[in-house]
Structures are given as C-alpha cells and as structure tokens.
C-alpha cells in the first residue's frame, strides 16, 4: 500500500497524460485548507483513494438526477408539440412528476420471467447501467473540473465502453425468453453495430485535425471562440458533425431510429419483460446515454466548455457546456416528436449507402485539407466558413427545387 502512489503507478501508466489528478486535488485543494498541525501528517495515499471514491460517488449520485430532469423535459416538450400541457398535477407545473414515478417504480413488483434465464436477466440492466456511467468518466465538463479519466486515448475509450452497451441489450433480450424482447435486441444489435461505423469515421475527422485522441486536448484546440470550434474548422468536419449527430441518435435507440423498442411493433423491445426498478435502470441509462452522446458531440465539434468569444466567459465553462449539451438534447427530443420511425431497410440503406461513403469522402477530404493548411489560421477558417456557407445555400436551393418538382399526392 505504501508505495502504491510513490512508485508512480498512476503517473507512469500512460492512460494518464498528466500526473494523477486525485493526488493533485489532495495537494492543491485539501491540504492548504487543513489546520497546520494536521496538514503535515495527512495520509496522501489514503487521501487520494478517498478523493477518487468521492468523485465516483458524485458521478453515481448526480447522473441519475439527469434523467429525472430530462424525462420531465421530454414530456413537457412532447406536450408542447402536441398542443397539450403535459404532467401538471404533481408539484408546481408537474415538476415532481418523475420523482413520483420513480417512487412508484421502486415499490412495484420486481418480476422475473419464470421461463427465462434468471442470472442473465438480473445482470443485464447492470451491464447497460455501468457502461453508460463509465462514459461520463472521460468527459471534460469544464475548466478546472478534474476529468477522472483524462486518458491519452479519451475518445477511443468512450467508443470502446459505449460499444459494450449492446451486449447488455442482447443479454436483456435473450434472457427474457420472449419473442418481442429477442426481436428488439436483434434489431438493436444490427443497428448499433452498423451505426458505429459512420460514428467512428466522423469522430476520426476530428481526431485527424486535432492529432490527438485526448478529450482535454480536443477541447484545448477550440479555445479561440466560435470560429475555432471544430465544426467550422473545415467543411468536412461540418458534414461529419451531422453524421455524428444522426448516428448517435441511432446509437441511443431514439426515434426516428427506435426500432429496437418500437411500441407499435414489438411492445417495448428488449425491456418488455422488465418491471419495477430494473425497468427504471434501463430508463435512466437511456437518458444518461442521450446526455452523454450530446456531451461528446459538444466536446468534439461545438467547442466543449470553451466560450463563444475568445477571452469572454459567455457560454463558456461548466454552465456553457451544460447549455450547449442540453441544446443538443432538445434537438433530439424535437426530432423524436417530429419524425416518423424508419423501416429496417431504410435504416440500413441510410447507414451503408449514404453515411459510410460520405464518411470515407470526409476522411479523404480532411486529409487533403490538412495537407493544404498545415496549421489553422485566419485563411483556413475563412475559406472553410465560406465553403460551408455556399454549400448550405446551394443545398437549400437544390432541396427546394426538388421538393417543388415533386407532384402533390392525390387523395384516392
């Protein structure tokens, strides 16, 4: 135990870019605040372990609160879109509705299908839950907020961990021993495995420009205001952002890609047989995932916690990061209540025939872009924004013309 930290296990292990953040936290924050007599004898190793556990505890405590807010937000947004008021009874404007629902779920019977596979059935929610939480370890939330897993391979770690979620989905679907569950999990497996490719390829364009996989380095390069955000750095990252965003909607199984849990077709998909708190775990994981992919999108493309203007805190720091992330979350809700569900063949066509070729084109383009502009300057960003502007205008014009040309559907 004594040489656990002094032998530099965490300092040398190359998952960590800098020295150990927890040791730093103890040295910089805790020890100066202690009384003189205690400070000299503060047990560093124990303190560091305790700091790590405390941060893990904060994550485990705070992240389930997110769905509490997001579920209510989703219901309110849905109500707005459908000209309703949404939940209004519990608390002022129904703000305590999710809390009441949560309490209700805790008291519900925890039903385990007698024909199913009991061990896997009980394990599956935890696999999904743990993987959704592990993603949060590597997300940079703000300036000065330590990232527990500031890995040198940050974004790659996030992709690896989130690719395990599908194993939990398969586990849940198979062990329920129900047709709906199995169909749901098969759909989910096909969908997630397919959409991981355009997702990874669009992340690769960012990694090519930044030349690092580390999340903190990716944020650092976007410090010069809105035009240094990676989405505007080259026309290819602009396209990549949209591919990333749409693919991540597919990854978290939300409408228009919610085939794994399509209510009108297969009841509730892979979690049909779950009830009570286990069902709530799936629900929490789904909303936590939604927040996580939005946070990753913000970090990679929209400047992370960096502000809009260089040198100003406007839309910067932790509040700015949360606002941007919630903006993307709102966009997801907006899409959910606007678009109808895709068919399976449309889903696969979209991925394999459009997104993947466009992503490869993006990578080629980013490579050429990097060769032309060795480093980012006013010219490269100016040209990039001009191309994006012209591209958007012409896309708008072409789309408008095509829509105008289409014959009106005749009522039969």
């Amino acid at each position, binding site marked *: 135990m004594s040489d*656990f930290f002094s032998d530099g296990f965490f300092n040398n292990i190359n998952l960590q870019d800098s020295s150990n953040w927890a040791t730093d936290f103890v040295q910089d924050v805790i020890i100066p605040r202690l009384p003189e007599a205690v400070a000299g004898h503060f047990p560093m190793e124990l303190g560091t372990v305790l700091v790590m556990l405390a941060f893990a505890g904060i994550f485990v405590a705070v992240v389930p609160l997110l769905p509490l807010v997001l579920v209510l937000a989703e219901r309110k947004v849905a109500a707005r879109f459908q000209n309703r008021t949404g939940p209004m009874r519990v608390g002022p404007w129904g703000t305590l509705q999710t809390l009441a629902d949560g309490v209700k779920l805790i008291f519900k019977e925890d039903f385990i299908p007698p024909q199913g596979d009991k061990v896997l059935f009980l394990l599956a929610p935890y696999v999904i839950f743990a993987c959704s939480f592990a993603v949060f370890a590597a997300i940079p939330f703000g300036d000065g907020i330590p990232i527990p897993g500031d890995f040198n391979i940050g974004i790659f770690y996030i992709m*690896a961990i989130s690719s*395990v979620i599908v*194993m939990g989905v398969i586990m849940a679907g198979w062990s329920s021993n129900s047709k709906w569950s199995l169909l749901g999990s098969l759909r989910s497996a096909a969908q997630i495995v397919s959409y991981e490719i355009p997702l990874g390829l669009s992340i690769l364009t960012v990694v090519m420009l930044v030349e690092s996989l580390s999340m903190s380095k990716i944020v650092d390069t976007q410090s010069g205001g809105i035009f240094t955000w990676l989405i505007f750095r080259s026309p290819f990252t602009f396209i990549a952002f949209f591919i990333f965003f749409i693919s991540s909607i597919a990854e978290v199984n939300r409408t228009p890609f919610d085939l794994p849990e399509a209510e009108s077709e297969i009841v509730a998909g892979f979690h049909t047989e779950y009830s009570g708190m286990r069902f709530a775990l799936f629900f929490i994981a789904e909303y936590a995932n939604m927040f996580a992919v939005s946070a990753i999108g913000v970090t990679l493309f929209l400047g992370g916690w960096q502000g809009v203007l260089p040198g100003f805190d406007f839309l910067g720091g932790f509040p700015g990061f949360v606002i941007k992330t919630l903006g993307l979350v709102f966009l997801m809700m907006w899409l959910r209540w606007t678009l109808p569900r895709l068919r399976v063949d449309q889903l696969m066509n979209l991925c394999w025939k459009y997104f993947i070729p466009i992503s490869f084109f993006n990578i080629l383009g980013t490579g050429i872009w990097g060769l032309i502009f060795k480093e980012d300057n006013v010219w490269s960003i100016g040209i990039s924004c001009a191309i994006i502007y012209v591209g958007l205008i012409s896309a708008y014009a072409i789309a408008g013309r095509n829509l105008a040309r289409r014959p009106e559907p005749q009522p039969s």
Partner: protein
Amino acid sequence: MEFTLKTFIFYGFALITIASALAVVTVRNIVHAAFALMVTLFGVAGLYVFLQADFLAATQVIVYVGGILVLILFGVMMTSGRLEMRIHIERGQLLLGGGISLALLMLLLTVIANTPIWKNLTDDGTQLAPTTERIGQLILNEKFLLPFEVVSVLLLVALIGAALISRKEVRD
C-alpha cells in the same frame, strides 16, 4: 515480491480472466459461454493496461466485445431462438481439442521460459510514452505497411464475399 494495491488489482484482473475463461470452456449453455467470454476479454483488456498498452486495451474491447462477440451472439440467436442451447461434445472432439490446447500450452511455456525480461518496465526509470502514435508510425510509415495493406485487401475480399453470399441470385 512486495504486495501493493497495484499487485492486488493485477491479481484481481488475472483471477477474473482465468475464472471466466474456465467458464467459457466448461459451461454447457452456448450463450452463457459467450457472455463469459465477454468477461474474459475485459480481463485481458485490463491486463493490457498493466502492460502499458492503452490503445491495445481499448481496441480489444471495441473489436472483440463490441464487434465479434455481438456477431457471434447474433448468429446464435438467428439460428436457434431457444433458451436451452446445450453443446454436445463428442469424445473425438474432446481429444482433438485437448491435443491442440496442449500443443499451444507447450508453445506458450517455451516462449515464457525464453523471455529474458522478468522485471517491472518502469523500475529502471524509463518513462513509457503513449503508444498510439508509435503504433500509427509503425503501421503506416515504417515496418508494417505491407502487412497492413494485405490485411485490408483481405478484409475487402471478405466484405465482397459476404455481399455476394447474402445477395439474391439473379437468373437471366
């Protein structure tokens, strides 16, 4: 050897890896075996972290757990949706499998015995650099460009083959 928290974690990972690997080969239910394999692959990824191979650890998880294992399970579920999927082992298979495993074990033991380095890599003060950049340089720039390209062509062939098999036959 001094017993630190580091060695404690290491033996934890080793125990998980070996126990779940044993489960993979002894469990009769094929889906249980696949999920045990998931734990094994995670354990191996943890051991890679101890070998200071961060990139390899993440690749292990993303390729084997997120890709190959999902495809294995996908195949199992598509071919037989029943919950009770037992593996029937015949004596011939047992002998053949045992023989191959024994040969592999001998090979591994020889390699282990002939490896001269039995020390902690960081003991002599070498700061180990992140591996991602080095791997990229080796694959795309230096020694392994040709094997890398050959593998990519092989994958392309497999892709075309899969597309050809899954396509409906068109009679003319």
